[in-house]
């Protein structure tokens, strides 16, 4: 579980996040939605420690991120997997080497065990027989799946996804959504997904956090989205503009 308490973040005079209080629970996808520039990506970067918040606490299962020294923070990050908006695959490495990379760095597995784990991860994302292709040789949807496979190569507890559906067609988008739900449930991990794709929100949004102008404007689930529209004009406008 990840708790965010009173999080504030500004860039110069521009306040990007204002008093964010959220709890992300394990075992189901937590969706952070909002328009471009609403502060979703900044929130995600604060959560993984790529940005330092001005105020507030981020607590990973009773461990305060802000109180950690450099080494503890690096240790925590080994429990984190992240799917980047642009995939961030290492372009000089093959698919297999990309997935093997965290195993090489942080596990004591033998080369053959590492290969077994890589193949297991590739099977999980339905991408067998692509081991020796380079990122430049595969499609956008395949890159996303490689990104997910790399993120789950080590036994992670937390998975962060920044716009996992950006640039994908609706069918591939659905495949990625299903994959994220399945991985979250199978591994019982805390998954935080940044998205502005309302189709994804409606399909897999077991917990939805709507960020509007840097503040949490609405929290609910896909089951009570309709109710949310009526009580929150900003959410309603965001939803209508999405279709």
């Amino acid at each position, binding site marked *: 579980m990840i708790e965010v308490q009173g999080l504030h973040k500004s860039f110069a005079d521009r306040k990007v996040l204002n008093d964010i209080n959220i709890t992300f629970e394990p075992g189901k996808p937590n969706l952070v939605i909002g328009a471009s520039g609403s502060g979703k990506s900044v929130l995600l970067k604060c959560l*993984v*420690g*790529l940005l330092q918040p001005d105020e507030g606490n981020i607590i990973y299962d009773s461990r305060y991120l802000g109180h950690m020294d450099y080494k503890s923070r*690096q*240790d*925590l*990050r*080994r429990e*984190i997997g*992240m799917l*980047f*908006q*642009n*995939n*961030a*695959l*290492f*372009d000089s490495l093959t698919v297999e080497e990309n997935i093997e*990379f*965290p195993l*090489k*760095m*942080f596990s004591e597995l033998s080369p053959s065990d590492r290969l077994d784990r890589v193949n297991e991860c590739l099977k999980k994302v339905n991408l067998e027989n692509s081991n020796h292709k380079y990122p430049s040789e595969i499609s956008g949807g395949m890159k996303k799946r490689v990104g997910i496979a790399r993120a789950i190569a080590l036994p992670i507890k937390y998975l*962060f996804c920044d716009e996992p559906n950006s640039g994908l067609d609706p069918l591939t988008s659905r495949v990625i959504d299903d994959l994220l739900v399945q991985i979250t449930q199978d591994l019982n991990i805390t998954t935080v997904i940044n998205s502005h794709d309302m189709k994804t929100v409606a399909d897999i949004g077991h917990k939805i956090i709507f960020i509007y102008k840097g503040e949490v404007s609405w929290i609910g689930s896909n089951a009570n989205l309709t109710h949310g529209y009526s009580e929150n004009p900003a959410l309603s406008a965001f939803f209508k503009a999405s279709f």
Partner: protein
Amino acid sequence: MSFFTELGRFAIFMRFVLKRPQKWSVFWKITFREMHNIGIESLLVVMLIATFTGAVTTIQTANQLLTPSDLFPTQLIPKFVVGAVVSTSSILELAPTVTCLVLAGKIGANIASEIGNKKISEQIDAYEVMGINSASFVALPKIIAGLVMIPSLIIVANFLLIYGGVLATQFTTALTFDDLVEGARMVFHYDYVKIMMIKGFIFAFLITSLSSFQGYYTEGGALEVGEAGTKAVTKICIAILFFDLVIAQIFLGL
């Protein structure tokens, strides 16, 4: 951004770079690959430039010292002086400084663009999220590889500068091979080689660390990656010339 702000950022960057690698086996593998990229890939260009520069320096020095003039009648300057001037300037200046200025353009721009590209495509963030010290992971192998390979290239360049001079004596009657060698032997001093190597190590560090720093702090897109390469080369050249002056003053200043 002021000079001192930039210097502070560089110091912070180096504090992270000079940390113990997380996995030595991975570190050495990358370092050997970088040695190939920095050293072997630059060998041909260094060999060509050194040979031609050596030949041209010999011809021009001979022309200036041995052509009769009112101030210096030819007979007053022995021919071996040309060899002395060429060999000394090769060891002290041409081999380390000119070679490193060339390498600044080749290696510096390459490193800055490579790391800059990793930065804008979020690969650096990916290292960080995995719990890897990204600054050290991307920059330290390049710095170590540079510290090994660039001084080695300077040694090769030095031999070829002299060899270029020897080649030049084959095309002129004004100077013979013996004149060149006699002059070179007469003024040779081991301290000159020491100064050349000190310059080599300092310039190697400047080329690899400044270009890594410039690439690591790239923000934006493809345009900014190109700019990072250009800025890195400019900064490295200025730093090389500045430290060249400082080293000359410290070791050779009267």
